[in-house]
Protein backbone atom coordinates (compact mmCIF):
# COMPACT_ATOMS: atom_id res chain seq x y z
CA UNK A 1 0.00 0.00 0.00
CA UNK A 2 1.14 3.59 -0.53
CA UNK A 3 3.87 4.69 1.85
CA UNK A 4 2.75 8.31 2.15
CA UNK A 5 -0.50 9.08 4.00
CA UNK A 6 -3.44 9.73 1.69
CA UNK A 7 -4.96 13.18 2.02
CA UNK A 8 -8.59 12.45 1.52
CA UNK A 9 -11.03 15.05 0.25
CA UNK A 10 -14.71 15.67 0.64
CA UNK A 11 -17.01 16.59 -2.20
CA UNK A 12 -20.23 18.46 -2.55
CA UNK A 13 -22.85 18.08 -5.28
CA UNK A 14 -24.97 21.22 -5.51
CA UNK A 15 -28.33 20.90 -7.34
CA UNK A 16 -26.71 18.98 -10.15
CA UNK A 17 -28.70 18.19 -13.29
CA UNK A 18 -27.39 16.15 -16.19
CA UNK A 19 -29.71 16.01 -19.11
CA UNK A 20 -29.37 14.05 -22.38
CA UNK A 21 -32.08 15.56 -24.57
CA UNK A 22 -35.26 15.27 -22.51
CA UNK A 23 -33.90 12.47 -20.32
CA UNK A 24 -32.52 13.43 -16.91
CA UNK A 25 -29.65 11.20 -15.85
CA UNK A 26 -29.27 13.30 -12.72
CA UNK A 27 -31.99 15.57 -11.43
CA UNK A 28 -31.48 18.22 -8.77
CA UNK A 29 -28.90 16.08 -7.00
CA UNK A 30 -27.56 17.57 -3.78
CA UNK A 31 -25.15 15.39 -1.84
CA UNK A 32 -22.39 16.05 0.67
CA UNK A 33 -19.64 13.49 1.09
CA UNK A 34 -17.19 13.95 3.93
CA UNK A 35 -13.48 13.30 3.64
CA UNK A 36 -12.64 9.69 4.38
CA UNK A 37 -16.18 8.44 3.89
CA UNK A 38 -16.76 5.14 2.13
CA UNK A 39 -20.11 5.49 0.41
CA UNK A 40 -22.06 2.80 -1.41
CA UNK A 41 -24.48 3.91 -4.13
CA UNK A 42 -27.35 1.57 -4.97
CA UNK A 43 -29.96 1.84 -7.68
CA UNK A 44 -31.48 0.14 -10.69
CA UNK A 45 -29.97 0.35 -14.16
CA UNK A 46 -30.50 3.85 -15.47
CA UNK A 47 -30.90 5.41 -12.02
CA UNK A 48 -27.88 7.66 -12.56
CA UNK A 49 -25.11 5.85 -10.65
CA UNK A 50 -22.57 5.92 -13.49
CA UNK A 51 -23.38 9.53 -14.33
CA UNK A 52 -22.96 10.55 -10.68
CA UNK A 53 -19.53 8.94 -10.56
CA UNK A 54 -18.45 10.44 -13.88
CA UNK A 55 -19.59 13.89 -12.74
CA UNK A 56 -17.58 13.40 -9.53
CA UNK A 57 -14.55 12.47 -11.68
CA UNK A 58 -15.13 15.66 -13.70
CA UNK A 59 -15.40 13.56 -16.85
CA UNK A 60 -18.98 14.69 -17.41
CA UNK A 61 -20.00 18.33 -17.27
CA UNK A 62 -23.31 18.92 -15.47
CA UNK A 63 -26.09 20.67 -17.39
CA UNK A 64 -26.85 22.67 -14.28
CA UNK A 65 -25.36 22.94 -10.80
CA UNK A 66 -21.81 22.29 -9.69
CA UNK A 67 -19.54 20.03 -7.72
CA UNK A 68 -16.77 21.20 -5.43
CA UNK A 69 -14.00 19.58 -3.44
CA UNK A 70 -12.83 20.43 0.06
CA UNK A 71 -9.72 19.47 1.95
CA UNK A 72 -6.82 17.68 0.27
CA UNK A 73 -3.82 19.56 -1.07
CA UNK A 74 -5.83 22.57 -2.16
CA UNK A 75 -5.01 21.85 -5.80
CA UNK A 76 -8.01 22.73 -7.96
CA UNK A 77 -7.91 19.34 -9.65
CA UNK A 78 -7.57 16.62 -7.00
CA UNK A 79 -6.04 13.23 -7.77
CA UNK A 80 -8.94 10.96 -8.64
CA UNK A 81 -8.80 7.21 -9.22
CA UNK A 82 -11.60 5.80 -11.37
CA UNK A 83 -12.47 2.19 -12.02
CA UNK A 84 -15.34 2.05 -14.51
CA UNK A 85 -17.16 -0.42 -16.71
CA UNK A 86 -14.24 -0.37 -19.12
CA UNK A 87 -10.70 -1.14 -18.01
CA UNK A 88 -9.33 2.17 -19.27
CA UNK A 89 -6.01 0.56 -20.18
CA UNK A 90 -4.48 -0.21 -23.58
CA UNK A 91 -4.88 -3.79 -24.82
CA UNK A 92 -1.87 -3.47 -27.10
CA UNK A 93 0.52 -2.62 -24.26
CA UNK A 94 1.72 -4.89 -21.46
CA UNK A 95 0.47 -4.47 -17.90
CA UNK A 96 3.79 -2.92 -16.89
CA UNK A 97 3.88 -0.59 -19.92
CA UNK A 98 0.36 0.60 -19.16
CA UNK A 99 1.17 1.41 -15.55
CA UNK A 100 4.50 3.07 -16.32
CA UNK A 101 2.81 5.16 -19.00
CA UNK A 102 0.03 6.37 -16.73
CA UNK A 103 2.45 6.89 -13.84
CA UNK A 104 4.70 9.12 -15.96
CA UNK A 105 1.67 10.94 -17.28
CA UNK A 106 0.54 11.76 -13.76
CA UNK A 107 4.02 12.88 -12.75
CA UNK A 108 4.62 10.01 -10.35
CA UNK A 109 8.27 9.79 -9.27
CA UNK A 110 10.16 6.55 -10.04
CA UNK A 111 7.39 5.33 -12.25
CA UNK A 112 8.90 1.93 -13.03
CA UNK A 113 9.55 1.02 -9.39
CA UNK A 114 6.11 2.10 -8.30
CA UNK A 115 4.43 0.27 -11.19
CA UNK A 116 6.28 -2.94 -10.28
CA UNK A 117 5.22 -2.58 -6.66
CA UNK A 118 1.58 -2.04 -7.58
CA UNK A 119 1.60 -5.02 -9.93
CA UNK A 120 2.99 -7.12 -7.06
CA UNK A 121 0.26 -5.71 -4.82
CA UNK A 122 -2.51 -6.74 -7.21
CA UNK A 123 -0.96 -10.15 -7.84
CA UNK A 124 0.08 -9.65 -11.46
CA UNK A 125 3.84 -9.67 -11.03
CA UNK A 126 4.21 -12.83 -13.13
CA UNK A 127 2.17 -11.43 -16.00
CA UNK A 128 3.53 -7.89 -16.01
CA UNK A 129 5.17 -8.30 -19.44
CA UNK A 130 2.12 -9.86 -21.07
CA UNK A 131 -0.18 -7.83 -23.29
CA UNK A 132 -3.39 -6.83 -21.53
CA UNK A 133 -5.22 -8.26 -24.52
CA UNK A 134 -4.35 -11.75 -23.24
CA UNK A 135 -5.78 -11.15 -19.76
CA UNK A 136 -9.01 -12.52 -18.32
CA UNK A 137 -11.71 -10.16 -17.08
CA UNK A 138 -10.55 -10.53 -13.48
CA UNK A 139 -6.94 -9.79 -14.37
CA UNK A 140 -7.97 -6.75 -16.41
CA UNK A 141 -9.89 -5.45 -13.43
CA UNK A 142 -6.74 -5.80 -11.30
CA UNK A 143 -4.75 -3.76 -13.85
CA UNK A 144 -7.54 -1.18 -13.82
CA UNK A 145 -7.37 -0.91 -10.04
CA UNK A 146 -3.58 -0.65 -10.12
CA UNK A 147 -3.95 2.15 -12.68
CA UNK A 148 -6.45 3.96 -10.45
CA UNK A 149 -4.06 3.78 -7.48
CA UNK A 150 -0.96 5.05 -9.31
CA UNK A 151 -1.05 8.66 -8.16
CA UNK A 152 -2.20 7.87 -4.63
CA UNK A 153 -5.61 9.41 -5.19
CA UNK A 154 -7.55 11.39 -2.63
CA UNK A 155 -10.81 10.16 -4.13
CA UNK A 156 -11.53 6.68 -5.45
CA UNK A 157 -14.54 5.98 -7.62
CA UNK A 158 -15.69 2.43 -8.39
CA UNK A 159 -18.46 1.83 -10.93
CA UNK A 160 -19.85 -1.69 -10.35
CA UNK A 161 -16.31 -3.04 -9.96
CA UNK A 162 -17.36 -6.63 -9.28
CA UNK A 163 -19.16 -7.08 -12.63
CA UNK A 164 -17.88 -10.17 -14.41
CA UNK A 165 -15.55 -11.21 -11.58
CA UNK A 166 -15.40 -14.74 -10.23
CA UNK A 167 -15.65 -15.45 -6.49
CA UNK A 168 -11.87 -15.40 -5.95
CA UNK A 169 -11.33 -12.09 -7.71
CA UNK A 170 -14.36 -10.68 -5.91
CA UNK A 171 -12.88 -11.62 -2.55
CA UNK A 172 -9.55 -10.10 -3.52
CA UNK A 173 -11.29 -6.87 -4.58
CA UNK A 174 -13.32 -6.66 -1.38
CA UNK A 175 -10.17 -7.06 0.69
CA UNK A 176 -8.44 -4.33 -1.29
CA UNK A 177 -11.31 -1.90 -0.87
CA UNK A 178 -11.25 -2.61 2.87
CA UNK A 179 -7.54 -1.75 3.02
CA UNK A 180 -8.15 1.45 1.05
CA UNK A 181 -11.04 2.41 3.28
CA UNK A 182 -8.80 1.95 6.31
CA UNK A 183 -6.27 4.45 4.88
CA UNK A 184 -9.10 7.02 5.06
CA UNK A 185 -9.26 7.47 1.30
CA UNK A 186 -12.67 8.83 0.24
CA UNK A 187 -14.43 6.09 -1.70
CA UNK A 188 -17.62 6.12 -3.75
CA UNK A 189 -18.72 2.80 -5.13
CA UNK A 190 -21.80 1.97 -7.13
CA UNK A 191 -23.02 -1.53 -6.48
CA UNK A 192 -25.87 -3.72 -7.67
CA UNK A 193 -26.86 -5.52 -4.55
CA UNK A 194 -25.83 -6.17 -0.99
CA UNK A 195 -22.49 -7.92 -0.82
CA UNK A 196 -19.40 -8.13 1.40
CA UNK A 197 -18.09 -5.08 -0.50
CA UNK A 198 -21.26 -3.13 0.19
CA UNK A 199 -20.91 -3.93 3.90
CA UNK A 200 -17.57 -2.10 3.92
CA UNK A 201 -19.41 1.17 3.38
CA UNK A 202 -19.75 3.69 6.18
CA UNK A 203 -22.74 5.20 4.39
CA UNK A 204 -25.16 4.17 1.66
CA UNK A 205 -27.51 6.08 -0.63
CA UNK A 206 -30.06 4.92 -3.17
CA UNK A 207 -30.63 6.68 -6.47
CA UNK A 208 -33.77 6.63 -8.54
CA UNK A 209 -34.54 8.80 -11.54
CA UNK A 210 -31.30 10.69 -11.00
CA UNK A 211 -32.08 11.79 -7.44
CA UNK A 212 -31.20 10.50 -3.96
CA UNK A 213 -34.29 8.88 -2.48
CA UNK A 214 -32.76 7.21 0.58
CA UNK A 215 -29.67 7.92 2.66
CA UNK A 216 -28.39 6.08 5.74
CA UNK A 217 -27.16 9.44 7.01
CA UNK A 218 -30.80 10.50 7.14
CA UNK A 219 -32.08 7.45 8.94
CA UNK A 220 -32.65 4.95 6.11
CA UNK A 221 -31.77 1.33 6.89
CA UNK A 222 -28.74 -0.11 5.12
CA UNK A 223 -30.52 -3.33 4.17
CA UNK A 224 -33.53 -1.50 2.79
CA UNK A 225 -31.36 0.57 0.47
CA UNK A 226 -30.01 -2.52 -1.22
CA UNK A 227 -33.14 -4.62 -0.96
CA UNK A 228 -35.24 -2.01 -2.73
CA UNK A 229 -32.69 -1.66 -5.55
CA UNK A 230 -34.05 -4.97 -6.80
CA UNK A 231 -31.28 -6.19 -9.06
Amino acid at each position, binding site marked *: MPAAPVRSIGLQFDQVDK*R*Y*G*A*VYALRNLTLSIAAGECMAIAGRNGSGKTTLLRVAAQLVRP*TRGSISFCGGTGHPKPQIGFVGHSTMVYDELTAAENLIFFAKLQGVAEAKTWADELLREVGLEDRKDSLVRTFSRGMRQRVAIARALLAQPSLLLFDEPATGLDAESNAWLTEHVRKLRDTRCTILMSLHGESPMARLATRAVRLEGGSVIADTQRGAMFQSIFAAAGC
Partner: protein
Amino acid sequence: MTKRVLFGVLAIGLVACAAYASFYVAPEERTMGAIQKIFYFHASTAWAGETTFFVCFLANLLYIWKRKPQFDWLGVTCAEVGAACITVVLITGPIWARPVWGIWWTWDARLTSTFVLWILYICYLLLRTLVDEPDRRALMCALFGVFAFIDVPIVFGAIRWWRTQHPAPVIMGGPGSGLEPTMKAVFFFNVLAMHLFAAFLIVERYFLEKTKHDVELLRQEAEAR
Protein backbone atom coordinates in the same frame (compact mmCIF):
# COMPACT_ATOMS: atom_id res chain seq x y z
CA MET B 1 -47.01 37.21 -34.54
CA THR B 2 -48.30 40.47 -36.02
CA LYS B 3 -44.86 42.03 -35.67
CA ARG B 4 -43.37 39.13 -37.61
CA VAL B 5 -45.94 39.47 -40.35
CA LEU B 6 -45.31 43.21 -40.58
CA PHE B 7 -41.56 42.61 -40.72
CA GLY B 8 -42.08 40.06 -43.48
CA VAL B 9 -44.20 42.46 -45.48
CA LEU B 10 -41.59 45.20 -45.02
CA ALA B 11 -38.72 42.92 -46.05
CA ILE B 12 -40.46 41.54 -49.13
CA GLY B 13 -41.65 45.01 -50.05
CA LEU B 14 -38.12 46.38 -49.84
CA VAL B 15 -36.80 43.57 -52.03
CA ALA B 16 -39.47 44.39 -54.59
CA CYS B 17 -38.52 48.08 -54.48
CA ALA B 18 -34.86 47.20 -54.80
CA ALA B 19 -35.62 45.03 -57.85
CA TYR B 20 -37.56 47.91 -59.40
CA ALA B 21 -34.71 50.30 -58.69
CA SER B 22 -32.21 47.87 -60.24
CA PHE B 23 -34.21 47.58 -63.46
CA TYR B 24 -35.69 51.05 -63.88
CA VAL B 25 -33.70 53.54 -61.80
CA ALA B 26 -30.13 52.42 -62.29
CA PRO B 27 -28.72 53.36 -65.69
CA GLU B 28 -27.68 50.62 -68.10
CA GLU B 29 -24.00 49.81 -68.11
CA ARG B 30 -22.18 50.93 -71.21
CA THR B 31 -20.45 47.75 -72.36
CA MET B 32 -22.46 44.88 -70.87
CA GLY B 33 -26.00 46.19 -71.20
CA ALA B 34 -28.99 44.97 -69.24
CA ILE B 35 -27.38 41.73 -68.05
CA GLN B 36 -25.07 43.76 -65.80
CA LYS B 37 -28.07 44.54 -63.58
CA ILE B 38 -27.91 41.05 -62.13
CA PHE B 39 -24.84 42.41 -60.32
CA TYR B 40 -27.07 44.35 -57.86
CA PHE B 41 -28.84 41.17 -56.81
CA HIS B 42 -25.72 38.98 -56.97
CA ALA B 43 -23.37 41.18 -54.93
CA SER B 44 -25.95 42.28 -52.36
CA THR B 45 -26.94 38.65 -51.72
CA ALA B 46 -23.26 37.80 -51.31
CA TRP B 47 -22.87 40.53 -48.68
CA ALA B 48 -26.02 39.35 -46.88
CA GLY B 49 -24.67 35.77 -46.92
CA GLU B 50 -21.37 36.86 -45.45
CA THR B 51 -23.07 38.88 -42.72
CA THR B 52 -25.25 35.89 -41.92
CA PHE B 53 -22.19 33.65 -41.60
CA PHE B 54 -20.64 36.15 -39.20
CA VAL B 55 -23.79 36.05 -37.05
CA CYS B 56 -23.57 32.23 -37.22
CA PHE B 57 -20.00 32.46 -35.94
CA LEU B 58 -21.07 34.68 -33.04
CA ALA B 59 -23.95 32.31 -32.22
CA ASN B 60 -21.49 29.37 -32.23
CA LEU B 61 -19.15 31.17 -29.82
CA LEU B 62 -22.03 32.12 -27.56
CA TYR B 63 -23.29 28.54 -27.48
CA ILE B 64 -19.86 27.19 -26.51
CA TRP B 65 -19.71 29.77 -23.73
CA LYS B 66 -23.31 29.83 -22.44
CA ARG B 67 -24.76 26.47 -23.60
CA LYS B 68 -28.23 27.94 -24.17
CA PRO B 69 -30.16 26.09 -26.92
CA GLN B 70 -31.30 29.44 -28.36
CA PHE B 71 -27.76 30.08 -29.61
CA ASP B 72 -27.73 26.67 -31.28
CA TRP B 73 -31.02 27.47 -33.03
CA LEU B 74 -29.61 30.82 -34.18
CA GLY B 75 -26.47 29.08 -35.46
CA VAL B 76 -28.27 26.51 -37.60
CA THR B 77 -30.72 29.15 -38.81
CA CYS B 78 -27.94 31.48 -39.96
CA ALA B 79 -26.05 28.62 -41.56
CA GLU B 80 -29.12 27.63 -43.59
CA VAL B 81 -29.99 31.17 -44.66
CA GLY B 82 -26.34 31.89 -45.44
CA ALA B 83 -26.04 28.72 -47.50
CA ALA B 84 -29.21 29.73 -49.39
CA CYS B 85 -27.74 33.19 -50.10
CA ILE B 86 -24.50 31.72 -51.40
CA THR B 87 -26.46 29.23 -53.55
CA VAL B 88 -28.12 32.24 -55.17
CA VAL B 89 -24.70 33.88 -55.64
CA LEU B 90 -23.28 30.75 -57.29
CA ILE B 91 -26.24 30.57 -59.67
CA THR B 92 -26.47 34.26 -60.60
CA GLY B 93 -22.73 34.48 -61.24
CA PRO B 94 -22.78 32.01 -64.13
CA ILE B 95 -26.07 33.48 -65.44
CA TRP B 96 -24.21 36.77 -65.82
CA ALA B 97 -20.98 35.18 -67.06
CA ARG B 98 -22.48 33.13 -69.88
CA PRO B 99 -23.72 35.95 -72.17
CA VAL B 100 -20.82 38.26 -71.28
CA TRP B 101 -17.84 35.92 -71.28
CA GLY B 102 -19.28 32.91 -73.11
CA ILE B 103 -18.47 30.62 -70.19
CA TRP B 104 -20.62 29.36 -67.32
CA TRP B 105 -17.82 29.11 -64.82
CA THR B 106 -14.20 30.00 -64.23
CA TRP B 107 -11.99 29.18 -61.31
CA ASP B 108 -11.27 32.80 -60.51
CA ALA B 109 -10.32 33.69 -56.93
CA ARG B 110 -13.64 34.99 -55.74
CA LEU B 111 -15.86 32.31 -57.30
CA THR B 112 -13.59 29.48 -56.17
CA SER B 113 -13.39 30.78 -52.60
CA THR B 114 -17.15 31.32 -52.52
CA PHE B 115 -17.66 27.76 -53.68
CA VAL B 116 -15.45 26.44 -50.86
CA LEU B 117 -17.32 28.66 -48.38
CA TRP B 118 -20.61 27.20 -49.58
CA ILE B 119 -19.31 23.64 -49.24
CA LEU B 120 -18.11 24.34 -45.69
CA TYR B 121 -21.57 25.43 -44.59
CA ILE B 122 -23.24 22.53 -46.40
CA CYS B 123 -20.90 20.30 -44.37
CA TYR B 124 -22.01 22.10 -41.19
CA LEU B 125 -25.64 21.36 -42.06
CA LEU B 126 -24.79 17.74 -42.90
CA LEU B 127 -23.01 17.32 -39.57
CA ARG B 128 -26.20 18.39 -37.81
CA THR B 129 -28.07 15.42 -39.28
CA LEU B 130 -25.41 12.93 -38.16
CA VAL B 131 -25.14 13.56 -34.41
CA ASP B 132 -28.16 12.26 -32.52
CA GLU B 133 -27.96 13.63 -29.01
CA PRO B 134 -29.10 17.30 -29.04
CA ASP B 135 -26.54 18.86 -26.67
CA ARG B 136 -23.69 16.93 -28.28
CA ARG B 137 -24.92 17.94 -31.73
CA ALA B 138 -25.12 21.59 -30.75
CA LEU B 139 -21.60 21.60 -29.28
CA MET B 140 -19.96 19.69 -32.13
CA CYS B 141 -21.62 21.89 -34.74
CA ALA B 142 -20.69 25.04 -32.86
CA LEU B 143 -17.05 23.93 -32.73
CA PHE B 144 -17.02 22.97 -36.42
CA GLY B 145 -18.67 26.31 -37.20
CA VAL B 146 -15.85 28.13 -35.42
CA PHE B 147 -13.25 26.17 -37.37
CA ALA B 148 -15.07 26.82 -40.64
CA PHE B 149 -15.46 30.56 -40.09
CA ILE B 150 -11.82 31.02 -39.12
CA ASP B 151 -10.81 29.04 -42.20
CA VAL B 152 -12.80 31.26 -44.59
CA PRO B 153 -10.43 34.27 -44.74
CA ILE B 154 -7.47 31.86 -45.05
CA VAL B 155 -9.21 30.14 -47.97
CA PHE B 156 -9.82 33.48 -49.66
CA GLY B 157 -6.23 34.55 -49.07
CA ALA B 158 -4.68 31.29 -50.24
CA ILE B 159 -6.79 31.07 -53.41
CA ARG B 160 -6.20 34.72 -54.24
CA TRP B 161 -2.41 34.14 -53.90
CA TRP B 162 -2.76 31.02 -56.04
CA ARG B 163 -4.57 33.04 -58.68
CA THR B 164 -1.77 35.61 -58.80
CA GLN B 165 0.39 32.68 -59.91
CA HIS B 166 -2.18 31.58 -62.52
CA PRO B 167 -4.25 34.61 -63.67
CA ALA B 168 -7.77 33.92 -64.95
CA PRO B 169 -10.70 36.08 -66.06
CA VAL B 170 -12.17 37.99 -63.14
CA ILE B 171 -15.91 37.72 -62.95
CA MET B 172 -17.32 41.10 -61.99
CA GLY B 173 -15.32 43.97 -60.62
CA GLY B 174 -15.43 44.64 -56.92
CA PRO B 175 -18.68 46.04 -55.59
CA GLY B 176 -18.68 49.81 -55.78
CA SER B 177 -15.61 49.86 -57.99
CA GLY B 178 -16.18 52.07 -61.01
CA LEU B 179 -19.87 52.56 -60.16
CA GLU B 180 -21.38 55.94 -60.96
CA PRO B 181 -23.40 57.60 -58.13
CA THR B 182 -26.89 56.35 -59.08
CA MET B 183 -25.60 52.84 -59.52
CA LYS B 184 -23.88 53.03 -56.13
CA ALA B 185 -27.08 54.21 -54.46
CA VAL B 186 -29.12 51.42 -56.06
CA PHE B 187 -26.45 48.91 -55.06
CA PHE B 188 -26.48 49.91 -51.40
CA PHE B 189 -30.28 49.98 -51.41
CA ASN B 190 -30.14 46.37 -52.64
CA VAL B 191 -27.68 45.54 -49.87
CA LEU B 192 -30.09 46.92 -47.28
CA ALA B 193 -33.06 45.08 -48.79
CA MET B 194 -31.24 41.73 -48.97
CA HIS B 195 -30.01 42.08 -45.39
CA LEU B 196 -33.54 42.76 -44.18
CA PHE B 197 -34.88 39.86 -46.22
CA ALA B 198 -32.19 37.56 -44.79
CA ALA B 199 -33.11 38.79 -41.29
CA PHE B 200 -36.76 37.97 -41.99
CA LEU B 201 -35.83 34.46 -43.13
CA ILE B 202 -33.66 34.04 -40.01
CA VAL B 203 -36.51 35.07 -37.70
CA GLU B 204 -38.97 32.68 -39.32
CA ARG B 205 -36.50 29.79 -39.44
CA TYR B 206 -35.51 30.43 -35.80
CA PHE B 207 -39.09 30.07 -34.63
CA LEU B 208 -39.46 26.95 -36.72
CA GLU B 209 -36.38 25.47 -35.01
CA LYS B 210 -37.77 26.45 -31.61
CA THR B 211 -41.07 24.71 -32.39
CA LYS B 212 -39.18 21.61 -33.60
CA HIS B 213 -37.30 21.54 -30.31
CA ASP B 214 -40.46 21.93 -28.22
CA VAL B 215 -42.22 19.16 -30.15
CA GLU B 216 -39.22 16.84 -29.74
CA LEU B 217 -39.17 17.47 -25.98
CA LEU B 218 -42.89 16.67 -25.71
CA ARG B 219 -42.41 13.51 -27.75
CA GLN B 220 -39.55 12.30 -25.56
CA GLU B 221 -41.49 13.07 -22.38
CA ALA B 222 -44.49 11.14 -23.71
CA GLU B 223 -42.25 8.18 -24.62
CA ALA B 224 -40.62 8.24 -21.17
CA ARG B 225 -44.06 7.82 -19.62
